[in-house]
C-alpha cells in the first residue's frame, strides 16, 4: 500500500511530448502509444471528437427516415435522413437519463423513442415529445427545443458522409484537401457515381486502432510476406512491387501507397469479370481522371483517410477501424461499386471481398493475427521500452508533376506511416484546431 501511495503518478497524457513519442525525423516510435490508457483517452478527445469521421455512404440513406447507427470514437451516434433530404448525425443517448435510443443497426423510422421513459426524438435529433408530458407543464427547465440529442456537423464528399463534433474543425473539403485527388480514383471514375452494396461484415480485433490504420496508410511492405499464402493460392506466384513505377503520397495524415498497374489488386478478387471490366473501361476512366490516375483504379494499393477510414482499390472494400479501448477495435467492411455497373459485376465484388478481405477472407485472416500480437506484446514493461523502427525510405521524397501532397518513390516505404504519426502527434499536442500544423505537403 505504501508503495502505491509513494509511487510517482504518471504524467497526465495531455502533458506528454507527442513529437518525442513519435520521432518521425529519425523514424522511431514509442510503443506506449499503442498501449497506454491515458493516451487512448486523449485520442478519443483530440482525434475522434475532433476530426471528420466517416459515418456512412449516401446510398444507405435512399429514403427519408433511413438511418444507420455507428460510432465516432466511442460516442454512439445515429445518422438519419430527414424529410427535407438532409442527413443528420447526433448522439445515440437520451438527454433524460442517457439510455441508448436506437438499438437497430439500420432501418427506416419516423422517430427514435427511448425505451426508458418514452422520450421521442425526430430524424434531426430534436425532442418531439415525452411520455406524460403534462407533468412537465410547471417545470421551468423543460424546454423541448434545448433537450434534443447533441448534433454533429455533417459533410459529404462524393457520396461519403462524414461528421465531426468539433465546431472549430475546418470544412470537410479543407480537411480532405488535396487528398481528394486520390479519393476520386474510386469515387469519381464513372459518371453514375457510387453506392455501397447492402450490409457489411463486422468483427472485433484485439489490437490498437493505429496498427490497422498504419497498415492501410502505407504498408505495402507486409503484403508480399504476410499474404504469401493467399497470393500463392490465388495468383500462383509471389506479390512483387514495381520499384520503378510505384509511390506513396500523403496529405495531412491521409495517405495512399500505389502502383500504376490498373489491375494488381483486382486480380486478387479471383473474379475475371472485374479484371475485364477494368481493362475495357480504362479509356473511359481516363476521360474523367486523366491517363495516370486511370491506371490506379484497380491497382496494387492501400489507403487510409485520417483517422480511421480505409480502402483498397481493385477490391473496392471500404472499412472503418472503430476503437473499443486501447487494445480493441471493431472492423466494419463494406463494398463500394459504381451505380451503373451490371448486377453480375456487383455480385462479383460482393462475393470476392468476402473471400479476400473479410474475417473469413484469404488475405485478412492473416492481418488480424499480426495486429493483435503487435499490440499484446506491449503488456510487458521492458518490451514497452523498446522503440519500434519506422525508418524505411527516409530519403525517398520526390517531386511529381501531377501527384499532389508529399510524394515518395517506391511503395515499399515507411513514409506514409511517419506522416500518419506526425499528424497524430500534431493533433494530440494541440489544444484546439488553431494549433494544428498544416501537413499538406511536408514529410520526409
Amino acid at each position, binding site marked *: 500500500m505504501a508503495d502505491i501511495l509513494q509511487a510517482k503518478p504518471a504524467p497526465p497524457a495531455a502533458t506528454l511530448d507527442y513529437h518525442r513519442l513519435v520521432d518521425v525525423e529519425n523514424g522511431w516510435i514509442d510503443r506506449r502509444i499503442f498501449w497506454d490508457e491515458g493516451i487512448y483517452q486523449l485520442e478519443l478527445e483530440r482525434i475522434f471528437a475532433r476530426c471528420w469521421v466517416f459515418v456512412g455512404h449516401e446510398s444507405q440513406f435512399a429514403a427519408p427516415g433511413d438511418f444507420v447507427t455507428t460510432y465516432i470514437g466511442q460516442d454512439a451516434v445515429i445518422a438519419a435522413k430527414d424529410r427535407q433530404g438532409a442527413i443528420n448525425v447526433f448522439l445515440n443517448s437520451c438527454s433524460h437519463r442517457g439510455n441508448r435510443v436506437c438499438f437497430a443497426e*439500420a432501418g*427506416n423510422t419516423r422517430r427514435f423513442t427511448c425505451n426508458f421513459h418514452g422520450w421521442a426524438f425526430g430524424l434531426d435529433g430534436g425532442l418531439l415529445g415525452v411520455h406524460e408530458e403534462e407533468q412537465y407543464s410547471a417545470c421551468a427547465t423543460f424546454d423541448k427545443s434545448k433537450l434534443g440529442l447533441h448534433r454533429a456537423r455533417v459533410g459529404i464528399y462524393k457520396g461519403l458522409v462524414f461528421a465531426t463534433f468539433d465546431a472549430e474543425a475546418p470544412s470537410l473539403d479543407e480537411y480532405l484537401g488535396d487528398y481528394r485527388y486520390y479519393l476520386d480514383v474510386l469515387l469519381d471514375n464513372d459518371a453514375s457515381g457510387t453506392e455501397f452494396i447492402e450490409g457489411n461484415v463486422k468483427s472485433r480485433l484485439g489490437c490498437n486502432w493505429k496498427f490497422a490504420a498504419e497498415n492501410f496508410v502505407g504498408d505495402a511492405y507486409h503484403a508480399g510476406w504476410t499474404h504469401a499464402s493467399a497470393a500463392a*493460392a490465388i495468383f500462383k506466384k509471389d506479390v512483387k512491387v514495381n520499384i520503378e513505377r510505384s509511390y506513396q503520397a500523403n496529405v495531412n495524415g491521409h495517405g495512399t501507397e500505389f502502383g500504376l498497374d490498373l489491375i494488381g489488386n483486382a486480380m486478387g478478387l*479471383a473474379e475475371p469479370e472485374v479484371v475485364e471490366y477494368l481493362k475495357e473501361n480504362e479509356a473511359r476512366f481516363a476521360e474523367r481522371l486523366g491517363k495516370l490516375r486511370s491506371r490506379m483504379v484497380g491497382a496494387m494499393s492501400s489507403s487510409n483517410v485520417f483517422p480511421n477510414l480505409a480502402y483498397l482499390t481493385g477490391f473496392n472494400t471500404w472499412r472503418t477501424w472503430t476503437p473499443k479501448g486501447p487494445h480493441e477495435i471493431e472492423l466494419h467492411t463494406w463494398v463500394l461499386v459504381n451505380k451503373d455497373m451490371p448486377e453480375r459485376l456487383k455480385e462479383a465484388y460482393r462475393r470476392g471481398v468476402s473471400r479476400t478481405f473479410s474475417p473469413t477472407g484469404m488475405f485478412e485472416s492473416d492481418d488480424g493475427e499480426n495486429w493483435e500480437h503487435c499490440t499484446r506484446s506491449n503488456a510487458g514493461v521492458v518490451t514497452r521500452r523498446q522503440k519500434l523502427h519506422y525508418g524505411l525510405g527516409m530519403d525517398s521524397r520526390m517531386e511529381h508533376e501531377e501527384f499532389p501532397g508529399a510524394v515518395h518513390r517506391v511503395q515499399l516505404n515507411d513514409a506514409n506511416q511517419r506522416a500518419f504519426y506526425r499528424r497524430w502527434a500534431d493533433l494530440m499536442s494541440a489544444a484546439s484546431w488553431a494549433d494544428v500544423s498544416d501537413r499538406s505537403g511536408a514529410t520526409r
Partner: protein
Amino acid sequence: MSVNAVEQAVAAPRRASLQLVHDVQQLLYREARLLDEQRYDDWFELMEDDFRLWIPVPQSRYRRDGQGIYEPRRMAHFDDSLSELKLRASRWKETTAWSEDPPTRHVHYVTNIEVEPAEAAAEWLVHSVVISLRNRNEDEENWLGGRREDVIRETAAGLKLAGRKVFVTQSVLMAKNFNTFL
C-alpha cells in the same frame, strides 16, 4: 428462409426412417471431425458438385422493419460455390500460411438434428445446430454458433451434402477472423 419467416407446413408424405436419421447424423458427425482435423480435401468429398455454402452476416433490425435479420443480397461471411471453397482452403496448405502455424485447435459440435422431406424426391432438409470452438496460441478462444439448414441428397455413392445455409447468431463476429467452415 425459415429463420426470417413464419414456417410453412410441408405437406409432403415422406417421413425419414430411423435408418436415414442415423445415417444423416453419422454424416454430420464425420463431417465435423474432418473439419476439426482440417482434412478439407476429404471434407469436400462429402459435397455434390452444385453445393453452395451461404453464411450471411446478421443485422440487428427492429421487428417492424420490412427487412429480415438475414437477407441474400447483403454482405456475407460465405456465399461460395464448391470450387470457391476449395480455393479458400488451398491457402491453408501453403507453408507460408503463417497464421495457421502453429495450427488452430478446432472442435465443431453438431446437435439438434431434425430430418424433414425436401421438395426433390431424393433430398432431405436437415436442420441442426453447429458450434465452433477455436483455440489458438496460448490463450485465444473463440466461440461461434449457428443454425444450419442443409440439403442432403441420396446418391449412388451414399448421402451427400447438396447445399448449406448457416444462420450465425453473432452480428459482430467476436473474433479477429474465422479460419474454418461451419
